[in-house]
């Protein structure tokens, strides 16, 4: 007698597990490299330069920087996980498998984006932990989380959004170079300009008003609000625009998974 198969949760969890195992196998590269990067940022910007920066809010620059770095880790790693999964699948040819097996577009989309979010969360937590160590050493106390649920909300929205954006970009890309170009020339600048390292209050009015069109601003300031209880953007507005951005990325990823080519390069 043939075994009965569950085509809803088992396929979904299998793909999720694969997405997870894929980065856990290369954990040094995927988790520890970002750890070192975050430490360097904290050391150079937070500690060394931070001494000469005073914020109008009266916060230490190090406290200001930590939420920015945490969100940057989450966004980058969520994006990395789903996009490298798709790109390497195109490269080796096993992306075709996803199309051939009885996985629906929604299952692929959610398994990949929650997989990306998981990695983002892990690296984000590590960054937060390292940030706390620095904070304790430099300022003498731990940073307390002001609004844990708000923090969680923005981390999840940001991670899912970027994992879904990663799917879309990786499907679109025709080469590895195109893939990394999007990271280097589009995402990293947008994340930096979204206020990881500075408050947009300190910008020239022109750049400041331009910043409001950058969705990263809302992601990053949402996290900052969650951690510090204060940010450049009203939290409700940040939440609204972040959700809107998530919807946009979701439909983009959905479209690409439905219509895109799963064939190898």
């Amino acid at each position: 007698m043939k075994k009965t198969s569950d085509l809803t949760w088992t396929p979904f969890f299998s793909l999720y597990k694969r997405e997870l195992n894929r980065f856990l196998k290369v954990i040094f590269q995927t988790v520890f490299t970002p750890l070192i990067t975050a430490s360097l940022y904290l050391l150079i910007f937070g500690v060394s330069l931070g001494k000469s920066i005073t914020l109008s809010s009266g916060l230490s620059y190090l406290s200001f920087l930590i939420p920015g770095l945490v969100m940057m880790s989450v966004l980058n790693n969520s994006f990395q996980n789903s996009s490298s999964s798709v790109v390497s699948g195109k490269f080796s040819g096993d992306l075709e498998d996803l199309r051939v097996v009885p996985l629906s577009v929604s299952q692929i989309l959610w398994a990949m984006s929650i997989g990306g979010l998981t990695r983002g969360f892990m690296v984000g937590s590590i960054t937060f932990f390292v940030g706390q160590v620095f904070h304790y050493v430099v300022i003498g106390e731990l940073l307390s989380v002001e609004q844990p649920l708000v923090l969680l909300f923005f981390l999840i929205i940001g991670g899912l959004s970027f994992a879904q954006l990663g799917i879309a970009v990786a499907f679109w890309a025709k080469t590895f170079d195109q893939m990394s170009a999007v990271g280097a020339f589009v995402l990293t600048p947008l994340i930096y300009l979204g206020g990881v390292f500075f408050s947009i209050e300190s910008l020239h009015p022109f750049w400041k008003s331009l910043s409001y069109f950058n969705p990263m601003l809302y992601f990053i300031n949402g996290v900052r609000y969650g951690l510090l209880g204060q940010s450049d953007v009203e939290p409700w507005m940040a939440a609204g625009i972040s959700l809107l951005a998530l919807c946009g990325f979701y439909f983009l990823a959905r479209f690409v998974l439905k219509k895109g080519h799963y064939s190898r390069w």
Partner: protein
Amino acid sequence: MEKKSPLKIENLVKKYGAFTAVDSVSFEMKPGEIFGLLGPNGAGKTSIISCIVTLQEQTSGRIEVFGHDCQKETKLAKAAIGFVPQELINHGYFSVEEILHFHSGYYGRSNNTERIHYLLDKLALFEHKDKKVKALSGGMKRRLLIAKALVHEPELLLLDEPTAGVDIELRTSLWDFVEELRKDGLSILLTTHYLEEAEELCDRVGILQRGQLKKIGPTAELIKELTQREIMIKVSRELESIQHAHLIEQEGQHLKFRVPSDKGVGDLINDLGLDLNLVMDLSIKEGSLEDAFLSILGGDVQ
């Protein structure tokens, strides 16, 4: 209740831009049969299979797997199919056994170790189960693809050129395995341009040329209907020029005829009014699927 056809294709058209790769192809498989899709390179075999597994979007037409429309009831159709692609696939990160576990999961099977080990053993991959795919030879990769296609005990197996680039030893063992699968009730569609393979394995074949299905029928009947035997006669002295419909070559003492496969040698010699004492040597070459193929495709074999 009558068993549903494993695969029913109606007026399938696949265009790449303006180019029509599959031109209104229709056929239906019978439960438990091995159906061969034959044709030269570029005939459209892979395109048809790609439409079945939705790797390519069909331009028009209808494909049903056990009554499930491949576009509307995608999940059910896919769950019934095992697919072995023509091109070898690598997997970056995982070992052979891990890949098979994930693959089982995609088909809804979470505890599938028994089946996986059975297949690894059957396909002589057991000792390589902890290797990364990169470390496998081409033949092993091919067998891994077959194992992947079978983890969920599919009811319809699609084999796209399963033995292309595979050495002879492996080829015969794969043929045996395919026969065994069929005995277990699996319906199999295989594409090939090795006619020997089709002749050996297939109950029925369809011959595809430039996207069109030219001929379809039981392999044996097709051979009989379409093949010709070659009769070579060596005579003891040079004859004057012979006029005969089936003569294809006359050179010195050698005569060569190509006749329909139901025409006997005696008939031919009677036809010619040839003195039997003149015949020194006589040989017959029976037609094969290759000839059938050629007679349908004309000179279009690359």
